[in-house]
């Protein structure tokens, strides 16, 4: 039985080592199976880490035995254990769905490459989350980004290629900005270990170098996070990627970016420094714009995947709004929404995956009237949509409640109203889709399809069901989010 420190290292090394093994397996189904097993194992590891951290507190693992601050260390506390669990769990559930979908959307000679990239992406995302070294963050970030460019480019439509290229260019600029920021931090403090930087910054923080570093890092992460107005790569990337890739990335990539943002703001730079600068005001304006603009644009989309992508831009706005409140309650609401949104969007993209599997398209025009042919899938879509709106008994409602409560607690009325306005706009774009799928006359009577296969329905309903379960029993989600927020704010349990 491995010690907890070894488990932390396994979290990264196992998917990294398995990835080339998957590449060697030419059979798509075997590659899938190995990937699934690895991902589930990683979910188990993450859950062990979370349990340990909740009971004992944060712990540190040194890679290779080299002591910090020269060696790289993995520092696990409640915040990143939470994110680790979310990422690995979403990866596993989407992988359960993936086999038939991938077999249909990707040519047989590329399938093992797909799964290889998946594992590398997973490694990168988990690495960003677990590491305690600033430069290591950059390395793992680029690992996950490069593999996600590959995942996206494997979509059937040729626009997947241009979307991936656009994402590559913008993503690299973002990552390079982060690198510049880390460079300035290094120049100012002489170290790369995050805990060490934060100690040394407490003396030297009010210099132009450090402020510039902060700005570059925030902008760079903002690009990865699809923070308005740096979100332009997201709609195309999610729309044309293979369905399971969209589901996986929508549920994980931006969440990890938000984690990075929180880690830098709270742990590295510190609360006082960060919010002395006009961070709060900037985030409030940008996130409100994200919520309103993202939702309005979603209303006019024909492609359901793009509709959900713009909806994601709005949902990321909610998370940032929580952060901008600069209170523990707001931060807790943001972390809660990280969890809730992963469940909602993951589930909704899997629903779209079912539609694409049977109908070959995600276009509302082509899908009109066909909702009834796949009743379980359609019901899942409605349930997920209700959660986006924030109807009670769903996770969306729980997030909204926490966010509005946090805003009213400090008297920020306009913010509460923006959140509620977002719900109204969500009603419009969700209901429009539901109406077209159900009520409109069928666009062409060519084929009557059957319901999606059980292998696809089960993971979809697992997530949609989780959506409703966590809308009522919030012990895990709010519980951990509260602890994590407290930890980030105060540095104590």
């Amino acid at each position, binding site marked *: 039985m491995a010690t907890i420190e070894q488990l932390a290292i396994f979290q990264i090394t196992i998917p990294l080592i398995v990835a080339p093994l998957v590449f060697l397996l030419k059979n798509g189904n075997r590659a899938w199976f190995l990937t699934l097993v690895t991902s589930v194992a990683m979910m188990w590891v993450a859950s062990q880490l979370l349990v340990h951290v909740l009971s004992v507190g944060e712990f540190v693992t040194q890679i290779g035995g080299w002591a910090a601050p020269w060696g790289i260390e993995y520092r696990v506390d409640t915040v990143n254990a939470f994110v680790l669990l979310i990422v690995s769990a979403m990866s596993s559930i989407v992988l359960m769905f993936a086999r038939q979908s991938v077999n249909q959307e990707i040519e047989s000679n590329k399938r093992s490459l797909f799964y290889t990239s998946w594992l590398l992406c997973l490694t990168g995302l988990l690495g960003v989350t677990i590491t305690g070294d600033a430069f290591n963050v950059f*390395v793992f970030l680029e690992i996950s980004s*490069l593999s996600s460019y590959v995942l996206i480019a494997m979509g059937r439509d040729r626009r997947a*290629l*241009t979307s991936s*290229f656009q994402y590559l260019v913008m993503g690299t*600029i973002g990552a390079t900005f982060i690198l510049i920021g880390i*460079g300035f931090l*290094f*120049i100012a403090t002489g170290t790369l270990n995050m805990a060490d930087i934060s100690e040394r910054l407490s003396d030297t923080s009010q210099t132009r170098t450090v402020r510039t570093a902060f700005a570059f890092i925030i902008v760079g992460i903002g690009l990865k996070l699809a923070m308005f107005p740096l979100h332009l790569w997201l709609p195309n990337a999610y729309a044309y990627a293979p369905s399971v890739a969209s589901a996986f990335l929508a549920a994980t990539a931006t969440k990890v970016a938000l984690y990075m943002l929180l880690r830098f703001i709270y742990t590295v730079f510190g609360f006082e420094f960060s919010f002395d600068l006009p961070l709060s005001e900037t985030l409030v304006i940008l996130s409100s714009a994200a919520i309103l603009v993202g939702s309005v644009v979603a209303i006019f989309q024909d492609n359901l995947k793009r509709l959900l992508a713009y909806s994601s831009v709005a949902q990321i706005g909610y998370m940032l709004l929580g952060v901008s409140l600069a209170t523990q309650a707001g931060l807790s609401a943001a972390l809660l929404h990280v969890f809730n949104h992963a469940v909602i969007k993951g589930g909704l993209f899997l629903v779209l995956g079912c539609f694409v599997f049977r109908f070959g398209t995600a276009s509302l025009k082509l899908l009109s009237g066909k909702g009834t042919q796949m009743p379980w899938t359609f019901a899942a879509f409605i349930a997920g949509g209700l959660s986006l709106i924030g109807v009670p008994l769903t996770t969306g409602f729980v997030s909204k409640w926490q966010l509005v409560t946090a805003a009213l607690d400090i008297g920020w009325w306009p913010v509460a109203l923006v959140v509620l306005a977002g719900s109204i706009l969500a009603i419009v774009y969700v209901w429009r889709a539901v109406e077209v799928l159900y009520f409109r006359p069928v666009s062409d009577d060519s084929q009557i399809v059957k319901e999606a296969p059980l292998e696809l329905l089960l993971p979809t309903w697992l997530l949609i069901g989780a959506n409703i379960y966590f809308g009522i029993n919030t012990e895990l989600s709010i519980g951990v989010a509260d602890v994590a927020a407290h930890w980030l704010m105060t540095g104590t349990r």
Partner: protein
Amino acid sequence: MDILSHYNYWVAIFLMMTGFYVVIASGNLVKKLIGLNVFQASVFILYISAGVVDKGVPPILKEGASILYSNPLPHVLILTAIVVGVGTTALGLALAVRIKEAYGSVEEDDIHAQEED
């Protein structure tokens, strides 16, 4: 402010802006990648030049007591970053090849025009 003694920063800034401009303004996909490379190179220079210690020798271990080395850490970091940059460029060029196969061109305008239909 010593402008001349901080010339390394000016070089880095110049390269950064040039690269950034090429990325944004160029319509050709391959040229965008070149701009991206220039942009990344500027960061490399920023790091390495910041690691230089006055009167220090390149950080290669030599026999002898108390020799002043330049900081080796930036070199290590930049090696990693160069590798990342190479990987990115390779991927970008591969995508450009595939785009050329799919659209017949690597000019953004042509690609947009084809998508409009």
